[in-house]
């Protein structure tokens, strides 16, 4: 399982979002918040790493 925001490998956990019927898991709340703000950006453009806080 890959965190779609930072690209880290993650286990299924409680930090997750449902988007277009698919569940995505995140390494942290920060990643989830960024994903929720604009899911399309990460799903189309791919993970952008952990560079910007």
């Amino acid at each position, binding site marked *: 399982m890959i965190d779609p925001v930072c690209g880290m490998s993650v286990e299924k956990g*409680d930090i*997750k*979002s*449902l*988007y*277009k*019927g698919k*569940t995505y898991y995140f390494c942290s709340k920060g990643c989830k918040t960024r994903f929720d703000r604009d*899911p399309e950006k990460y799903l189309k453009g791919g993970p952008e790493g952990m560079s910007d806080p």
Partner: protein
Amino acid sequence: MIPRSESNTSGEDSEELKIVGMHCATCTTSVERALRKAGGVINVSVNLASEEAVVEHRGTPTSKLVSAVRTAGYDVVTYIAAFKVKTISAEELGRLAAKLEAQKGVVRVEVDYTSDTLRVEYNPLTTGPDKLEETLRGWGLGPTRISEQLSAPDVVAASRTLRAYSLRLLVGAVFTSITLLAAYTNQPLLALIAASPVQFYSGWVFHLGALRALRNRVGNMDTLVSLASNISYFYSLYMAVFRDSAGFVDVAALLVTFVLIGKTVEVYTKTRMLSEFASPLPQVAVVIRNGEELKVDTRTIGVGDLVVLSAGDKVVVDGVVEDGHAEVDESVITGESKPVVKRKGDPLFSGSTVISGSLRVYSTRVGSKTYFEQVTEAVRRAQATKLPVQRLVDRVSAIFTPLILAASAATFTIWLLVFHSSFGAALTYSVAVLAAACPCALGLATPMAVSVGIRRASKMGLVVKRGEAFEAAHKTSIVIFDKTGTLTEDTFEVESYTERTKGALELAASVESRSQHPYARALVKAFGKRFEPSEFDSFTGEGVMGVVDGKTILVGSKRFIKNNIANHENMDFQGDGASVYVAVNGELAAMVKFKQKIRREAPSVVKALKGMGIRVVMVTGDSEAEAKAVAGELGISEVYAEVKPEEKAEIVSKLREKGVVMFVGDGVNDAQALTSADVGVAMGTEVAKAAADIVLSSSNLRGIIRLIEESRRVYAKIRQNLAWAFGYNTTILPVAAGILAPYGLSLQPEWAALAMSLSSVLVTLWSRV
């Protein structure tokens, strides 16, 4: 704001003592003075009705406090626990005994070197055998407890006093009869001899009390009674010896006996009251240990133990029903006498009684942490504080005795010098004045009325933690409700819905049956669960996803659904705040609006408060629209919405300029507001934790009405007592002084004593009902 004593700073400490032997308001002054002189004492408050003293001090040892009280002529209830300790050298044992004596709550330690036993006298309000044992074990003495007295300290003290009074009364009655017989058959010497046990044994309590008062330079009822009986007795003695006349020795005996009757009734009433309310929890209970049912000492029950209860048992722990089924009388908690059915998962509180059936209870709170113990402790503390009204009463009774002594002396002088009556006649009138005066309505009845009020409130599910608040409640002119958790429940109900796809809500409810969210419960309640979801996933704060009957169901916020369906149009749903959306197989299928459930009794309580002429205000952190909706339904016009927790206290302070404010909250998010109100009422059973003055453990809002009514009742009673005391004394004293003598009407001292006795009994009983 009424100042309150907060937790200790700079090495200050406090200790409570149960005092024995106080029977008049001025006794409290004596005990207070004695304790103040004990050294390192900062503040003392003594309560006559509860017979307790609260001493704030800087590390004053318990033994010093106890001996101060004992030197002043009173006693302190102490218990004794004996421990057999490991055999060590006598010298070391002595040293450890001294060390133990310095511990808080320990009064005295006796060492029996031959059997290696320590007998520890301790203050049961401060420490206990468990604590002592722990201390001794900590010192490596491996103690075994030998024996111990069991029963509540209040009841022990009261019944001890009652026994003493009853015996004195019995002796008094028997010998007074003989005295009367001898006096009427003109045998002065026999009358005098028969009157002596009455005077010196039965009347001893009064003489002792009078001496004690004298030593402490105060006067009390004992002063009056003792003086009256002594004057009569010694005058009669003089008459019998030198004039061969009985004088009025019968007066001395009757006087003592009559006053004793009153006293005994008083003490009896008090004892009854105490044992009625303070029935302690059982000492043994059945617990499952290693799969077996075992009878154990309740003090050994720990959190997590399974307690077995059957019909007739009193619940000794707080906990949750593990299995079984029973009807339980929870009236001590809720004030509701109707039994409640308890099943698996239901909470159970200590102090309630199993009526029928049987239960196994998983203990969550034990020992002093239980609801029952917390309430007992809270009520005891509330009673120990000196209420403002009590201070007034104390001031009045402090001048009462000197006033009566002066009146008596004046009566004697005027009869002798102005009216030139005989010495004996003048003496009779002055003794009658002493005997007739009754300060009891002041001294005893007031604290008794408050005490009864507080205890009664606790039986109605109102735990008074601060006496002042109970007093202030009767003047309440503004009640502020913190909406959530008081006027409304934490649960929601479906207000309205639209269903685009038929059966969508039934499917949504089936999915939500797996969730604990308040919205989910409301959905299940409204639409029922029809299917078991084959898949389920929940997204905290957003929604849930589940597969039911082969369909993928989503229930959640607007955003959650929007992100997961193809067609976003037409998602507008009238209304604000609490709503959820439902999607079936990626299509918007239904929308549901919720409203917070208003407590069933809330509208009638608001109405009743308004009927009592009280202003009702609501504060809430919710939005203006939501708040208005609830307020409208309840008939509350004064609403503060979108209020942050810290702002609630400001609103309270502002309204306090307009009147006496009662704040009702859930006790969790409103601690500040609760403490800044004149009366802070919290809902719930966390008696010790709640930052409130009064805890409404019944979680029934009607308790607020009861609280105000009970407080009003008590204060009406106090006013009546004061009126009675004033009316009685101003009527009877002139008569006793002989003002009606020209019309052939006078009050003999013994009848004056009877009138006084009856007055005191009357007031005592009146304060109780």
